[in-house]
C-alpha cells in the first residue's frame, strides 16, 4: 500500500483537476448516451472515454515521474483514438495523426525533462525533485523542456495546428478535449511551479509566448466563419492567456482560468447545434466618447468590486494588476452596449450590473485560489517592461475592435490590412489533409 502511496500525491491541485475532469466526464457520458444513439461506435466511445478519464485521474495524482509520463502518454494516445471515431473517414484519421505527432513530440520533451531532473537530483518523485537543489543548467534545460511539453499539450503557438485541425472529432470528444486534455499544459506548469519561481527568465518566456498565443488565437477566433473552428481558435487564445498567467507567477489564477474556461468551452461545444439560431446583434460601434467614459467609470466600479471579492489590491505594483486591468476592460466593455441602448438614468443600474459581474468574477477566482492556497504557488512578480508592453497590446487590440470603422469603399482599404487579412485567414485554416475536399470521402 505504502509502495503505491509513494507513487502518488494527493494535494489540492489533484483535487481541483480530478473534480474538473470527473464532472465534465460525467456530463459528457450523459450527453453522449442520447447524442451518439445509433452510432456504431458508441460503445467504443464509452470504452475510450473511461480509459481517458482513468488515465487523467492517474496523471493528476501521480508523483512518480515515470508513472506521470506513462499516464500522460496513455491519455494523449486515447484522445487521438477518440478523435478518429470512424476510421473510414480519411480527414478524421489525418486529424488524429496530426495530434498524435504533436503529442509524441511533447512526450519526448517530457521524458527528456524528467531524465535531466532525475539524473541531477537522483529522485523520481516530483515533490522531492521540486524540493531539492538543482544545478542551474538542469533547472534551465528541465524547465524549458517542460515548457515545451506544456506548449504542445495546450496548443500554444507554434504547436497549435493540431487543435485548430481537430474538429473532425465528434462533438462530445471536442468538449472533453477542450475541458480536459488541452489543460494538461497548465496543469504541468502548475505542478512544476516551484521550479519556475527559481528563475525569472523561465517565467518571462512563458509569459511572452502566452501573450503571443493569446493575441493570435483571439484574432483567428474573430475571423472564423464556422462555429467549431471559432471555438477551437478561441481555446488557443484562452490557453495563451492561461500561460501568460503562469508567467506572471499567478499559477492558481491560471488553474482557475483553465477550470472555468474548460466548463465554458465544453458547454459551447455541446450546444454548437444552436449556432445558426443565435443572431449576431449590432453593438453600435464605435461608441460616443461620452458613453465610453461612462462605461469606463462602470468598469472601474466593477474592477474595484473584483479586487474586494478576489482579495487583491486595487492599486498594486505587482503582476496582480494585470488581472485588475482585465476586469476593468471587461467591465467597461460590458457596460458599453447597455449604455448605448438606455438613457442615462439607468447608469446606476448598469454600474450595479458591472459590479455584480466584478463580484462573480472575483469570487470565481477566489474559489480556486483559496483551494490552492496551501500549495503556495501564487507569487506575484514585480511589474517589468514586458508586462507593460503586453498589457498595452491587449488594451489596444480591444480598443481597435470597439473603435474600428467599417470601410465602405474598397479603394480606402490600406493594402497592408488586406495582406494581413489573407495571411491570417490562411494561417488559421486547418491542415489541408484534414479538410474533406471531396464530400464523398466522408464516411459514417
Amino acid at each position, binding site marked *: 500500500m505504502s509502495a503505491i502511496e509513494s507513487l502518488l500525491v494527493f494535494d489540492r491541485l489533484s483535487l481541483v483537476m480530478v473534480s474538473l475532469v470527473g*464532472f465534465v466526464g460525467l456530463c459528457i457520458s450523459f450527453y453522449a448516451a442520447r447524442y451518439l444513439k445509433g452510432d456504431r461506435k458508441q460503445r467504443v466511445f464509452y470504452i475510450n472515454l473511461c480509459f481517458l478519464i482513468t488515465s487523467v485521474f492517474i496523471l493528476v495524482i501521480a508523483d512518480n515521474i515515470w508513472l506521470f509520463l506513462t499516464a500522460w502518454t496513455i491519455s494523449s494516445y486515447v484522445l487521438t483514438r477518440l478523435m478518429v471515431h470512424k476510421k473510414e473517414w480519411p480527414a478524421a484519421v489525418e486529424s488524429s495523426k496530426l495530434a498524435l505527432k504533436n503529442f509524441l513530440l511533447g512526450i519526448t520533451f517530457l521524458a527528456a525533462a524528467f531524465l535531466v531532473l532525475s539524473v541531477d537530483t537522483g529522485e523520481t518523485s516530483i515533490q522531492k525533485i521540486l524540493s531539492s537543489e538543482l544545478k542551474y543548467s538542469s533547472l534551465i534545460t528541465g524547465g524549458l523542456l517542460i515548457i515545451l511539453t506544456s506548449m504542445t499539450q495546450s496548443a500554444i503557438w507554434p504547436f497549435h495546428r493540431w487543435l485548430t485541425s481537430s474538429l473532425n472529432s465528434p462533438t462530445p470528444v471536442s468538449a472533453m478535449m477542450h475541458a480536459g486534455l488541452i489543460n494538461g499544459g497548465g496543469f504541468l506548469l502548475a505542478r512544476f511551479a516551484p521550479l519556475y519561481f527559481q528563475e525569472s527568465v523561465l517565467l518571462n518566456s512563458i509569459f511572452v509566448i502566452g501573450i503571443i498565443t493569446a493575441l493570435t488565437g483571439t484574432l483567428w477566433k474573430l475571423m472564423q466563419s464556422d*462555429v467549431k473552428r471559432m471555438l477551437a481558435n478561441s481555446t488557443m487564445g484562452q490557453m495563451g492567456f492561461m500561460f501568460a498567467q503562469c508567467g506572471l507567477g499567478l499559477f492558481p489564477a491560471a488553474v482557475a482560468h483553465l477550470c472555468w474556461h474548460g466548463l465554458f468551452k465544453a458547454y459551447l461545444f455541446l450546444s454548437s447545434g444552436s*449556432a445558426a439560431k443565435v443572431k449576431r446583434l449590432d*453593438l453600435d460601434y464605435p461608441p460616443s466618447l461620452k458613453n465610453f467614459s461612462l462605461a469606463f467609470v462602470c468598469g472601474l466600479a466593477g474592477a474595484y468590486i473584483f479586487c474586494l471579492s478576489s482579495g487583491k489590491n486595487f492599486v498594486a505594483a505587482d503582476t496582480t494588476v494585470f488581472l485588475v486591468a482585465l476586469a476593468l476592460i*471587461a467591465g467597461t466593455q460590458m457596460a458599453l452596449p447597455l449604455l448605448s441602448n438606455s438613457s442615462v438614468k439607468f447608469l446606476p443600474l448598469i454600474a450595479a450590473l458591472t459590479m455584480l459581474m466584478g463580484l462573480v468574477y472575483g469570487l470565481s477566482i477566489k474559489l480556486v485560489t483559496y483551494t490552492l492556497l496551501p500549495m503556495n504557488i501564487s507569487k506575484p512578480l514585480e511589474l517589468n517592461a514586458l508586462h507593460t508592453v503586453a498589457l498595452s497590446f491587449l488594451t489596444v487590440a*480591444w480598443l481597435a475592435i470597439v473603435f474600428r470603422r467599417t470601410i465602405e469603399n474598397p479603394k480606402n482599404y490600406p493594402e497592408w490590412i*488586406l495582406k494581413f487579412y489573407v495571411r491570417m485567414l490562411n494561417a488559421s485554416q486547418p491542415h489541408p489533409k484534414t479538410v*474533406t*475536399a*471531396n464530400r464523398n470521402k466522408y464516411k459514417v
Partner: protein
Amino acid sequence: MMIVIDKAIEVKTEKTLSEKVVTDQNKIIENSWNKTGPFWPLRNLAAVNPISGFEDQPFEEALKNAQAYFQQEHFPEFMETVNRHTIKWLQAFFDEGQSTISMPMRNMGLLKSCQLLMRFDTSLCSGDKGKSEWLNSLSEDPKEIISECLNNLKIPLEKHEEFLTLMLTTLPGWAAYIKYRTDWADEKDNSNPNSVSKEGYMALRLMLTCLLWSDAAELLSWHEQILEKTDVKELYCLIKKNESSFRKNLFEKLDDESKFSVEASEADAQLAFCIDVRSEPFRKSLEAQGKYETLGFAGFFGVPVSIEDEVSGSSHSSCPVLLKPAHKIVEKPIKNRELAKKGFNRSQNFKRLYQSVKYNFTTPFSLVETVGLWSGLMMGLRSIAPQKTAVIGAKLKSVCNPSYDVSPKIDSIPFEQQVSYGANALKLMGLTRNFSRLVVFCGHGSSTKNNAYETALDCGACGGRHGAPNARILSSILNRVEVRKALEEQGICITQKTWFLAAEHNTTTDEVVFYDHDVPDSFEEKLNKLKKDLSVVRTENCKWRSGTMGMKTSQKTEQKIQTRSQDWAQVRPEWGLAGNAAFIIGARSLTKGVDLAGRSFLHSYDWQDDKNGSLLTTILTAPMVVTQWINAQYFFSTLNNTSYGSGSKVTQNITGKVGVMQGNASDLMHGLPLQSVNKSDTENYHECLRLSVVVHAPKSRILKIVKEQEILQKLFGNGWVHLTCLDPETAKFYDLDRDLSWQEK
C-alpha cells in the same frame, strides 16, 4: 467598289459571329447550372430534390447520371486542392454573422472581393510571379474571365458546357446554395446583402482552377470514364421492387372498404390539418374520439404572406417557396404590448452584453472566468435532467421575457382579396357546406433544442416555418361578418352558429395549442370538449410514435416524448416526414379508418365540386410538387447520405449560420442528416420510394390536366412520381404510364 462591299460583308459576318459567340457563351454558362438544384439555408430549410437538375430525364437515367456526377469518391488529386481553396473563400464570403472580423470588401460581390484579396494569397501563387501577374491582368467581367480561363486550360469549345458543369458538380453543396441565392432568395429571405451571380462564382472557380491545376482538362476524361462505368440497373430494380410491394399494400387498404358513401351527419367540429404525413395518424386518432370531421389542406391555408412580429420587428415569408408573399402581415401582442416590448428589449440587451464581451480581444478571458461556474452548472443540468432544466428555464424566461399571444392585423389584405382567399381555401379543402359549430385551422410546427435542422421539421407549405400565423389569418378573415356576407353571394353560407378558430399542432410533442382569446362564450363548451379529446389524442399518438422511435411504451410515454423535445443532446427528437411515400387526393371517406402508418400526405378533394378541374389543377401543380420535393429529399438523403444528405450530426459544424459542413471543413452538406432518415448508422428508417399519388377523380379529367401542365408531364412522363387514378365512375384503379396512357390495375 466590289472590294469595299466584300470587306463590309466580311466585317459584318465577323461581328455577328462574335455576337453569336457571346450569346453562345451566355447560354453555355446558364446551361451549365441546369444540373444544380437550389439549397435553402438553415433558417428555412425548404425540402428540395437534390437532383432536381435531372428531372427532365427519365428517372433511371437521372439516377445513373447523378451517381456519375455526385457520388464519386475519387477525384483527380488537384480537384481537391481547388475545392479546398474554393471552400475557404466561400465560407468567408457567405458568413452571416459567425465572424467578427469579416472578409473585407464583401459589398463588392463575390467575384470582385475575392479577386482583390486573392492577389495577396501566397498559398495560391506560391511565389510564382507569372501567376500573380496573370491574376492582376484579369478583367473584371466574369464572362471574360471564364473565356480566358477556358482558353488557358485548353478546353475544346464543344466541351465548354460539360467542363463548366463539372466545375459545379464537384462541389455540389456550395453550388446549390449559390443557385438558391441567385434564383430563389428574395429580400425577406436574404439576410446577406452581398451580391453573388452565377457567372461570378463560375469565374472564381475557374480562376482558382487555372492557378492550381493547369491540367484541369483531365476532368473531362475522368468524368467520361466514370459515365461508362456507372450502372444503376440493380439499384433501380431494388427500388421498383420495394415500391411495388408498398403500392400493392396501399391499394389493398384503399380498396378494402366501401368508400363511396358520404355520411351527412353533423360533426361536432371540423378540423383542417396540413397535408403533412404527420397529420394523418393524428387525424385518425382524433376521429376515433367523437364526431369529428378532419380535412387535409396545404398548411399555409392558401394565404401567401410574410409575417412580421411587431415586438421584435423580425419578419419571414410564410408560404410555399414556389410562391412570393403577396402581403405583409404584422402580428401584434393581444395585450400588454409594453410588457412584451420591455421583455424583448431586456433579452436583447442581455444577448448584446454577452456578445460584446465574447467577440472582442482581451475581454473573453474575463468572460470565461465569470460565467464558467454557471455554464458548468447548466451543462450538468441539461445533460443529466433535461426536462427539469427546461421547466426551470421556462419559468426564468417567463419572468425576464414573457411570451405573448399575438393576433394578425389583416387589414393589409384588401377586402376583395380576403374574400377570395377565404373562398378559395374553403373550396380547395372541399368545405363549402355543412359547417359545424367549430371549424379549426390547425397549422403545425416542431419544437426541438440545439438542432441545426429544426426548420426541416417545420411546415414545408410555410417554407420551413410554423403554420400558426397563417391559420390565424384565415380564421380572422372568415370570422368577419362582411366576408361571410360576400361568401354567401358565391354560395358559401356560413351562419353565426359557426366559429373559425386557429390552432397549431406541435409535431414533436403532439400538443395542440389554440389561439382562442376571442372565442365567444357560446362556443366554450364545444371547445372544451375538443381540447379534452385532443389531450387523449396526444397520448394515443405519442404511444404510437414512441414505437416508431424504438422507445418502450409506458405510463410516462407522453412525458418522455416531451423530454425529447427539450433535450439538447437529442438527435432524433421526432421522425419528421421520414417514411413518406404516398399522396392521396380525395375525400377523407376514402382513407378513414385505414391504417396508413403516417406515410401519406392527404389532401381533401371532392371531384363532384370541381367540374372544370381547376381545383385539381391547383392541387397537382402546387401541393403535389411540394410533396414530390419532400419525397425526393428523403429519398436521396436515404439513398446516399454523404452525397445527398448531410452526414451524421455527431461531427457537423455549422458554417456562416447558413449550412453545415462535416468536421474542419467540407462542401456545404445539403440534404437531411443521417439521424433524420436512419435508426442507426447501419439501419434505415426511411425507405427509398418514389411518391405514389392517388387521385380520386375521373381519368379523363386528370389526363386533361396533365396534358396542359408541362411540370406534370415531366414528373409523370419521366417516372419521378407514380400517378394512380381511383375512378369514381368505375371504382377501379388505373396507373398512368410514362406515355401518359392508363393501365387498369
